[in-house]
């Protein structure tokens, strides 16, 4: 199987650095996307809940005129919130796949390789980001059909793309972190259910920060989902406005991702114990 010369030299590249890190991350992204490509039903099934929120909840609340949304209609105000919600709800269960991979021994093999743990987690996060883009496309199509006026300038679209990837990466990495802590599928499902609703309601996804009681406003300012909704509200809809400013939103999202990535990479190997 090996030539005499080959036997003397291991085939492993001993170099390190950003290029190696990206190559290792890309290896993970590539396999994750191949798997989604072979079975895209999850992306479509995840689109059902946002349809209910926008079409039923959105239209009923638009008639009530109970939530002050400035110049925007309520459905236009809600659309970025529902995109963010759909990203949160699908990314937050990402960790269960990793528990499954642990049970099959796949994680053991990844951890025995010399690949950087951070690169392995980063690859998973980027793959979740790309999956988020699939969901964004479906929600854009739905919003377009509902005749809510979208922004199609290149800059706005690029910003939405970056925010969708960042949001998916953040919640998928958080999910991976939770999986490494709780370790079993049953506990994970319980914790996942427990986290999603508070994260959703303690955010500006379905109502503006301005009408929240003070304590909820404080909590929602600590919630990364708020910044994701805010940047999407500023870039996705004609006339939509960001409260915190796009720069601040991306700054917070970037910082949260870096902290989560570093923490999760640290505890990722413990998932097998």
């Amino acid at each position, binding site marked *: *199987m090996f030539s005499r010369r080959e036997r003397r030299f*291991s085939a492993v*590249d001993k170099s390190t650095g950003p290029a190696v890190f990206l190559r290792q991350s890309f290896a993970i992204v590539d396999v994750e996307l191949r798997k989604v490509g072979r079975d895209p039903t999850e992306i479509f099934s995840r689109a059902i809940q946002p349809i209910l929120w926008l079409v039923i909840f959105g239209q009923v609340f638009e008639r009530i005129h109970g939530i002050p949304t400035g110049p925007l209609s309520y459905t236009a105000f809600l659309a970025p919130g529902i995109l963010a919600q759909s990203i949160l709800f699908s990314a937050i269960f990402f960790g269960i796949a990793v528990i499954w991979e642990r049970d099959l021994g796949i994680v053991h093999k990844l951890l*025995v*390789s010399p*690949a950087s743990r951070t690169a392995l987690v980063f690859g998973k996060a980027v793959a979740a980001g790309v999956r988020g883009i699939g969901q964004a496309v479906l929600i854009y199509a739905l919003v377009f059909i509902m005749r809510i006026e979208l922004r199609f300038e290149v800059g706005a679209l690029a910003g939405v793309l970056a925010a969708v990837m960042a949001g998916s990466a953040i919640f998928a990495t958080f999910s991976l972190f939770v999986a490494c802590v709780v370790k079993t599928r049953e506990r994970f499902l319980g914790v996942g259910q427990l986290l999603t609703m508070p994260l959703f309601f303690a955010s500006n996804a379905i109502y503006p920060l301005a009408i929240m009681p003070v304590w909820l406003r404080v909590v929602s300012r600590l919630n990364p989902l708020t910044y994701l909704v805010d940047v999407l509200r500023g870039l996705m809809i004609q006339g939509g406005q960001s409260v915190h400013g796009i720069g601040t939103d991306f700054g917070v999202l970037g910082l949260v991702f870096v902290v989560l990535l570093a923490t999760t990479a640290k505890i990722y190997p413990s998932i097998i114990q």
Partner: protein
Amino acid sequence: MSPSIDPIIPAVKTLKLTRYYGSLAAVDQLDLTILPGQIFGLLGPNGAGKSTTIKMLTTLLAPSSGSAMVAGFDVAADPVNVRRRIGYVPQLLSADGALTARENMTLSGRLYGMPHREHKNRIPEALRFMGLGAHADQLVRTFSGGMIRRLEIAQALLHRPAVLFLDEPTIGLDPMARRAVWERLKDLRREGGVTVLMSTHDMEEADELCDALALLHEGRMAVSGKPADLKAAVGPEATLEDVFAHFCGGTLREGSDFGNVQQTRKTVQRRG
């Protein structure tokens, strides 16, 4: 140890290697020396500490005390250099069923930093060597248990490791598949260059494949040596089962492996 006295650097050397789970010593003061090019077997019943030993040597689990060197590097102090030089096949059938054989191999090639051209060329060669040449682009979930195991060995050998770790490589496989895996491991020994450390509870497997053995019992090494020497020490007609009974006072089948077999079979079924 001076190089002039003993120029052979062991492929694996452990010194009082110990791992506790709570107050239970799963591996207790284990001293092992495995010479390059050997197929070395850790033989023992379930709960003897075989998998825990392999997990420590492959850097998956930190030792509680003691030390271990693999391919010349300390597993605790320099785990990345150990990982670069080893291949690992876990007990479970762990190739990704949602990917093809080639995609599983490509993932390994990339994670081990092999240049694109090199892994592209070597993947078909490694698959052919394991008798899977015709199945490179088939989804692994359509493979039999034996095919998955051979794919995993191909995957673990792709980056030309110095030491290959196999944790119960034939558990749950039917006799034909088991023999096919044995034949490939024998081919590998004939070619040389790779040291194999395998765990097994199967005496026939240990007898057929291993150049040297360590019998583990309740986390401790009961005895080690060449299979023939171990048998000869017990009696003229002795089997490895007799050796085990002699040194450990029990049988290898105690602490039935049924649970493991069942788990592996379930994995095979899940993959179709």
